[in-house]
């Protein structure tokens, strides 16, 4: 066991974790996170995606102990009115919905790195996430729309 500090969606807590405990299990058990889920246990489907310091992490693969002092964002912790969430809803980018939070966070990471992604940029960035219902077209539409909204907002801010 070791004591670590995690900040999850703005809530900071110190807690004891076993050396081999997975970040996914700690987030779900200790922080009540619902949006990160195990789909494959080997980091191949993206359903367990969370952001640590803004970077995507497969939380089903990684030990919580490695994330001492990290700032974690999960989809259920995004603020109301989040542009990516709103555009996913508007584009009907969900069917069964199980994998979608992972795509939402991948979209956040992409738009931070690359505010004006091309279709190819979106494809490259989302390649590691699986939507078995096949909602990829709607997801792409949502991300492009979110990028446009962000750009408009940034434009207003700088004007």
């Amino acid at each position, binding site marked *: 066991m070791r004591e670590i500090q995690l900040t999850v969606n703005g809530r900071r807590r110190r807690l004891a974790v076993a050396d081999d405990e997975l970040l996914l299990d700690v987030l779900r058990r200790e922080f009540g996170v*619902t*949006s*990160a*889920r*195990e*789909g*494959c*246990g*080997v980091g*191949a*489907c993206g*359903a367990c995606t969370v952001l640590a310091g803004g970077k995507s992490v497969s939380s089903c693969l990684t030990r919580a102990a490695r994330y001492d002092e990290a700032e974690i964002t*999960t*989809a*259920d912790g*995004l603020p109301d009115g989040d542009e990516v*969430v709103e555009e*996913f*809803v508007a584009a*009907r*980018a*969900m*069917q*069964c*919905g*199980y*994998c*979608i*939070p992972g795509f*939402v966070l991948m979209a956040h990471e992409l738009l931070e790195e690359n505010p004006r992604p091309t279709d190819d940029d*979106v*494809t490259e960035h*989302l*390649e*590691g*996430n*699986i*939507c*078995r*219902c*096949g*909602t*990829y*077209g*709607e*997801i*792409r539409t949502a991300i492009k729309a979110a990028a446009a909204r962000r750009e408009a907002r940034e434009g207003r801010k700088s004007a």
Partner: protein
Amino acid sequence: MSDGSRSSGGAAVGERWARTDGRAKVRGEFRYAAEEPVRPCLDVAVHRSTRPHAKIVSVDTSRALAAEGVVAVVTGADLFALLGDRLMTGPAFSDQPCLAVGKVRYVGEPVAAVLAHSVAQARYAAEEIQVEYDELDPVHDVDEAITGSAFVHDELRPSAVFGDLKHLRGKRDTNVNYEFNLRRGDPDAAQGTTVSAEFWAPPTHHVPIELPYAAAWPEGDRVELLATTQTPSYVRQSLADLLDLPLNRVRVRTAPLGGSFGAKMYDRLEPLVAALAWTQRKPVRITATREEAFLLTTRHGAAVSGSMTADEHGAITAATADVRYDTGAYADVGPRITAKSGMVATGPYKVDNVRVRSRCVYTNKPSAGPFRGFGVPQVTWSHESLVDELARERGEDPAEFRRRNLLREGDIAPVGTPMHSADFVGCLDAVTEAIGWSEPLPPAEGRFVRGRGVAVGIKAVLTPTISNATVQLNQDGSATVLISTVDMGQGSDTIMAQIAAEVLCLGEGQVRVIGADTDVTPYDTITAGSRSTYHTGNAVRLAAESMRDKLTALAAKHFDVEATDLKITGDGLVSAQSQATVSIPDLLLAHFGARGTTLTAEANFSTSWQPYDHETGQSPQVTEHWFAGAAAVQLTVDTATGRVHIEHLAVAGDVGRAINPAMVEQQLSGAAIMGIGHALFDQLVFDEGQIVNGTLLDYQLPSIKDMPDKLTPIVIESPHRTGPFGAKGVGETAIIPLAPAIANAVRDATGVRLTELPLTPERVLTAIIEQEQS
């Protein structure tokens, strides 16, 4: 049956209503079954067979029992001692124990279960169980299973439920558990141009991203269960049979599923947790790991030997198919798949001379069961490749050749049933037009070659089946629909809300569908086979119409007029004579004298059929309705690597009437993307009966990178005379013709005819090289 196309003037059907749960799904706040609170449960882990076919000599559980946190270890023999033959479950054959008894039949079969205080403790202890085996000859290959002398089961055990399987009871020395035959005319006498080939579609897996989960606990003299299942009504009956309990002492709850595609139906984890909870008197739960999920069910691998003959006028005069479905160690619903796909194995064509032999064959592999398409994509792989080759052999355009021969309204299908609301021609024309079929192909560059292909699919809806619905109208004018249909992403909760709202003139958000709970929601055969919109939709429509009649009667009393004077509108009940209007809230308040009251109405919708003849497969009414779909594709093939790149894929489905066009389009495109996987790379690989790619590191699924440059879903509407507002289902329609459409385009581009799926780069390249050399 009343006239389903009668509209009451609502504004719900045909609208693109949003999913009621969309935002919660996007934010990840939506709760799936494993996230529903249940009482503290012991965790279950399973010890699995390491042999494909062996007698169990002994099971040593002592080390597992001594392991930390272990409460109990239960073997198949323990359960058999308590439950006897009732331990054997299954939808068509009662052949599968939840823990092996006496014999194991595939690598990975559950042999013993550990109940412990944590998942880690249970899994550790499960590894400590020692099993001694006496190995038997395994049966790996579907054709060797038919001719060989090793048998997976000593005798056939058809379930008592199905009268038509009775003649198979006790049959010994065979691995063929069911055979369907279709005979019409004399295909051997047909003259003209004939093509024939051997086809293979490999086993695949559904891989819904939500893992299978089940929890069960004794509740006094009842057993309760919460599970990821598409078939709560079936599971209740199955568990009642297993535990010898009346139906009112078994409760099955489910939650919306994180995908399923056929994986989470019939008997999966449910008999195991129910048997453990009941016999050990403990609350238990299990979530399958991804590796275990691969073992719970698969899609049938299928071999098809097919032929097709056309006369000198280009009319298809004869077609044959010899189909062998590899159903693995347990029949599950394989015998039904064998029949349902056998009856359409020669395709959507008007053919007078037909011979189909479709067999369901046991092998020592994990059991194969239903998968989006129910066995039909495997036979479509054969008939749509053959019809394409036949057109080319005759020097004809493959689309035009199909068009001439396709079944039309009123034509008799080879199975003997007339066609209605199955617009194959409309689907074919729509997809070919979408991809510019008649325009010249853009020139190819360098090592790339370009081609176009098309395919058409046919499937009969599962018949007979039963749906029930209860509509509860609340005094405030909102409504609740009680059905046992499970929303697994297809959007049934929204579709059913739209149907009820249309009849009762309610608005978006005013109707909610509650989750299936057999204590509360009425019987529904299954949520599968694209049957819900038509069947449950009709039950919901009828229940809503009954509710409308009740409201009309109340309003007639209220206004002291004849019921015929009243009409339901968005504002409430209106008298034609006086134009007086009463809203639903005011009407119910006046009637009951209290707020918060409810008015209920219910309905049943059942379909019937005429069983097919056992010798000829013929039936004048084999199905309630047909699914018709088509796919057309333009693609390039890299002749240096064999890699296929899809430029444009168009898919069309005749849905009768789209209740929600946005959701219909999602079903069409989602099935198409799944079909791309089946066409190009998706397959379960076995070695000596063992799955070698049963993890998501090894098993390839379509990602965003596999999307065509352009994907066009097309909704065709030829209303069904008894569909709710003319509607039929759509979940499977687009996957059925997908793989042959792609293979036909590869043939067009390269000249190579591939008969084995998937069309991996290696396979395509090898075929190109062999063609160059010959």
